[in-house]
């Protein structure tokens, strides 16, 4: 701090003279671009390979032929059976896994920034408990005759109901990020209690098992329509949050610091909470509550690609997609002919990964 380099703010002048333009952190920048590039290559590759994995052996070439045939390209189609395995069974499921994983990771990253809580995950806002209450109501009370579509609709309605309760609690008085977390926890408890009540009151062994499978998260009921819905939710959620990434950066030091950087904290928080809640509700309705993706993937990506949301959000989407895609591939094949709910696997992989990450962080800094 010498007289020569005083702030020239009033004049707004740029310092004169040739000076090497210093990049803020070239190492982090290079690493984050590498991560994005690698993710963009790995994701389509993973989709193509994961579709070939399963009881009926297929080759990557057969996958491409099937996709080309369905796109109306002049290729010789596979036999109807193999075609159906690729197009009706595996491809929607693999794509759904990628979309759900990517969407959950983005929502987790956004909520961690908005609430300044490293433990925040997409289910923070009561979404998953609300969804289970809705799903249980459909399954056990037999609303909508228990059809798959009714289950999804019930789960979605439950999520939105829970999120409205959260909004009502935080809307009562303007407050900080802690209020959001507390409201989320309280509403989650309420809806878990409601779910238990319904199960104990009206459940039989079989419907209880179905509920459990769903609560742990499973992509077994994947369909093209579910994948399309999730594509819309993940795509729109990512686009909106990405556009708000400077505002998310600004939240690092709290609401008042964000306000002093020109961000309207209340409005930003509300818009992004609603965005992530709606996206999560769609994802949960399609797949159940798959834990750990939304918590661990953002931390891992932040550790490797830096904290700026402009890079963090797309990277979280890519690696969340790749992670859940392979977790689900393992869930449906490793214990064949049985299938494990993918939520069980994500927790089994996620916790050790988290431990390694925390160790790396504490020794690295």
């Amino acid at each position, binding site marked *: 701090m010498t007289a020569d380099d005083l702030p020239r703010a009033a004049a707004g002048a740029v310092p004169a003279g040739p000076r090497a*333009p210093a990049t803020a952190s070239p190492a982090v920048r290079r690493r984050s671009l590498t991560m994005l590039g690698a993710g963009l290559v790995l994701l389509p590759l993973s989709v193509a390979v994961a579709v070939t994995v399963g009881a009926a052996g297929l080759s990557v070439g057969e996958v491409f032929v099937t996709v080309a045939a369905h796109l109306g390209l002049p290729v010789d189609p596979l036999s109807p059976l193999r075609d159906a395995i690729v197009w009706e069974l595996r491809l929607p499921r693999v794509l759904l896994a990628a979309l759900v994983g990517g969407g959950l990771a983005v929502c987790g990253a956004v909520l961690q920034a908005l609430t300044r809580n490293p433990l925040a995950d997409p289910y923070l806002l009561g979404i998953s408990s609300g969804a289970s209450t809705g799903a249980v109501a459909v399954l056990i009370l037999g609303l909508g005759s228990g059809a798959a579509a009714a289950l999804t609709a019930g789960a979605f309605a439950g999520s939105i109901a829970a999120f409205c309760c959260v909004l009502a609690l935080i809307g009562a008085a303007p407050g900080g990020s802690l209020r959001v977390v507390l409201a989320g926890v309280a509403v989650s408890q309420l809806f878990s209690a409601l779910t238990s009540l319904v199960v104990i009151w009206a459940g039989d062994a079989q419907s209880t098992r179905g509920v459990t499978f769903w609560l742990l998260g499973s992509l077994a009921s994947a369909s093209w329509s579910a994948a399309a819905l999730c594509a819309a939710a993940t795509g729109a959620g990512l686009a909106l949050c990405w556009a708000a990434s400077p505002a998310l950066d600004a939240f690092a030091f709290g609401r008042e610091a964000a306000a002093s950087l020109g961000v309207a904290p209340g409005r930003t928080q509300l818009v992004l909470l609603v965005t992530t809640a709606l996206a999560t509700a769609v994802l949960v309705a399609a797949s159940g509550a798959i834990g750990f993706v939304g918590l661990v993937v953002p931390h891992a990506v932040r550790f490797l690609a830096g904290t700026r949301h402009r890079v963090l959000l797309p990277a979280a989407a890519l690696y969340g997609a790749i992670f859940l895609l392979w977790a689900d591939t393992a869930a449906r094949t490793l214990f064949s002919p049985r299938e494990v709910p993918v939520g069980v696997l994500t927790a089994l992989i996620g916790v050790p990964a988290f431990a390694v990450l925390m160790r790396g962080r504490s020794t690295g800094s």
Partner: protein
Amino acid sequence: MSLATRDVAWSADGVPIVDGVTISVPKGRFTGLIGPNGSGKSTLLRLLAGLLRPRAGTVLLDGRRLGGLPRREVARRLAVVAQESSTDIDMTVADVVALGRIPHRSPLALMGRDDLRDARETEEALERCGLAGWGERRWSTLSGGERRRVGIARALAQRPAELLLDEPTNHLDIHHQLDLLRMLARAPVTVVAALHDLNLAARYCDHLLLLEAGRVVASGPPAEVLTARWIERVYRVRVAVSAAPDGRPHLWYSPLDETASPG
């Protein structure tokens, strides 16, 4: 005139914190806010920054009502260094300082358009705070005083015309206190800082505002405000004033119930 207030008031739970303050901050000068604990310095600063909405009265920036200006436009003009600020995110120092560039970024910055300029501004702000080459360090590993200087670098990266600081010398050793205050005094921007050390305020400020119970009781150049009469009344201490080598007032304190006073 850059910042001014007209009869501005703010209260918490019915207790008045700032109670009818009318001031005008001289443009391009260093104004010190002084007063005992709880006299309303921080609240007045946050009102001036537009972070609190006055319950009564108005805050004016160049004659326009601050509350009516777009937040982003205000952030390009006016930077704030809060008393305490922290984050749980494991950020680098460069990332923290670069936050100051947010109000200046165009929507196209998402594609990286402003990156070079922002990096240059970030680096320069770090240099001004004596932190050149610190960009890669982790914010979480810094001491309180170092964090404080990073916070000031963040505010400078905002390229403000008005810079508001709440006790900026907190946590700083005496070398860095003097360094910082000298930089603020020489900077061609309007500075308003809440300060506890009256002798440092005497030495570096052009203009002082003395607060007591939410009201400005004295204002003017240090020699007019830092008089035994005012300081004894507002701070409830015994004071002897002498002239420092630079001609500015220097205060010697003792408790009210002690008879002998040094100096």
